[in-house]
């Protein structure tokens, strides 16, 4: 059950996505900007999907890199073997990652910090194991994909399409009965069970979906980067990236992860070259400030500003 979906909202959303899709056609942007935007779309899709679990269900995962890496390497292997064209390989990667995510079932009984710690363990163990598994990941030297300039150019729209779909799905999820059930689980597992909301079932479902989307993103990332190595794709920094994007943008909101991913990509791109470590301090500081003062992150800050502006305007009128 999704309830009444406002037509105008859907139209406006489709319009925005279409506008962004038209940008490279209408304005000739530099290849650098083109690629940066592509990367931002991938990160948007990933952080939105992370937010289903971390924000909607309230189970903060520090291990999503596992699904990202599995998706990346499954897609890379399929493309390299020539078995499937790239788009189908990405979808296969997403499916595999979703199935692997179902393996988290026994962990989903754990709540709060216990769950988070277990995900750190899974993430780090998979990094070690997949780096060792040379037959699949190429070991520490990684895998190189054939460089395909046309595909890389087209990835802009593939990435945008993915981000657009996942964004729409997040919005529907938030509005749906399922979204309310997830909120109930987040607020109180036992009370949710009393009214017939099975935490086990819905957490499995959402973790599987979230993992599948992150795996799909990993598949696109493999094509985008054309060179992938397990210590990067399965790295702790990847997992942290999803957490930071969603939390900085606004944990549990629909719009937050999008905003967070854009800020994350821009900051990283502009700071990494000149101040390689500044991002640590910046993200750390942001995290502290957000948790203490504005748990809804940048989205919450925006809402607060909007409310103040509206109040000021009403004050002037009266």
């Amino acid at each position, binding site marked *: 059950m999704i309830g009444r979906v406002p037509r105008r909202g859907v139209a406006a959303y489709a319009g925005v996505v279409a506008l962004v899709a038209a940008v490279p056609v209408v304005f000739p942007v530099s290849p650098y900007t083109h690629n940066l935007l592509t990367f931002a779309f991938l990160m948007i899709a990933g952080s939105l999907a992370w937010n289903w679990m971390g924000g909607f269900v309230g189970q*903060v995962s520090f291990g999503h890199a596992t699904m990202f890496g599995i998706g990346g390497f499954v897609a890379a292997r399929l493309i390299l073997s020539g078995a499937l064209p790239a788009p189908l390989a990405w979808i296969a990667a997403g499916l595999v990652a979703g199935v692997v995510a179902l393996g988290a079932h026994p962990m989903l009984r754990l709540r709060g910090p216990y769950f988070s710690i*277990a995900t750190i*363990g899974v993430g*780090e163990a998979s990094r070690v194991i997949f780096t060792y598994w040379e037959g699949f990941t190429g070991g520490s030297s990684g895998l190189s994909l054939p460089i395909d300039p046309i595909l890389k150019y087209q990835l802009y729209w593939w990435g945008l399409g993915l981000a657009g779909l996942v964004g729409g799905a997040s919005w529907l999820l938030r509005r749906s009965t399922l979204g309310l059930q997830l909120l109930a689980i987040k607020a*109180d597992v036992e009370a949710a069970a009393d009214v017939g909301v099975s935490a086990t079932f819905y957490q499995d479902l959402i973790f599987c979906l979230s993992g599948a989307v992150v795996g799909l993103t990993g598949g696109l990332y493999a094509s985008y980067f054309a060179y992938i190595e397990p210590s990067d794709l399965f790295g*702790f920094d990847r997992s942290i990236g999803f957490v930071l994007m969603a939390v900085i943008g606004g944990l549990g909101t629909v719009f937050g992860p999008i905003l967070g991913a854009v800020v994350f990509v821009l900051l990283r791109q502009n700071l990494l070259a000149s101040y390689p*470590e500044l991002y640590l301090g910046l993200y*750390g500081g942001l995290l*502290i400030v957000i948790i203490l003062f504005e748990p809804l992150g940048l989205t919450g800050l925006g809402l607060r500003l909007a409310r103040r502006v509206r109040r000021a305007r009403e004050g002037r009128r009266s």
Partner: protein
Amino acid sequence: MARFIDLAFSAILQAGLYATMAYGLGLIYGVLRVVNLAHGGVIMAGAYLGWVLFERWGIDPYLSIPIVLVASFVGGAAMYRLLVRHLPRGAAGGPASLLLLFGVWLVLRYAGYRLFTGDDRTIRTTYSTDAVSLFGSFLAVNRLAVLGIAVLVPVGLHLLLRRTYLGAAIRAVAQNPASCTIVGIDVERIYTITFGLGTALAGLAGLLAATIFSFNPGFGSGELLKSFVVVVLGGLGSIFGMALAALILAVVETFAILVLPSYLTAAVGFVMLVLVLVLRPGGLFGQRVLG
């Protein structure tokens, strides 16, 4: 057989380090029910503090133990007063405290890079490479000292918790903070002291680790994860449980070399962490509050 004895000794020495790293995390969790994700950062900071004291003022790392303890205590108490105290508690506070302290860790790492660059550092004393021979195995003097301290710390903690008024107050707060306010225990003060104590122990662990390993500002993440394994395995807050758990972790890790390719032994601790959480969330020895 000689190889077996070598491995056994190295496991015991390793256990000493793991236990020292875990006590602080376990103490804070046991009393405040907060997972201190900044733990790894404090371990790193303790290592650098020891390094600065040694390089600048020539203070021997073992003599700088009290300095590091006091400095980390003050840092931890400040962290509690300024940050952790303002968090929502209970079910809603779980992810918030985790994320906040993770932010603290990132800031600490950044400070480490700014102050000391990313270069690897070591504390090299005149006795750093000394070893004693026992049953044909060579044991590094530094590792033996760490083991000695790892045995002294839980004894000291036990005495503090069981024999002093402060210890009784800490245990009472761990069990039921609401009732403590009725009998006149200043709960916030106890929390501050406990957080300071836990941080001091993490700083100590960092200092001790620095006498054995080289380190850089990224140091501490592996240590944090090992500490998790020990705390969870030992039953979240039980001090002697943690010591035993450290021994189990070290033995399993060390002897895994016999059956696993050496590269994969790095995953053993992580796999244990997940298995223990899933199979025995209360720890191997059942849950006790600060025994």
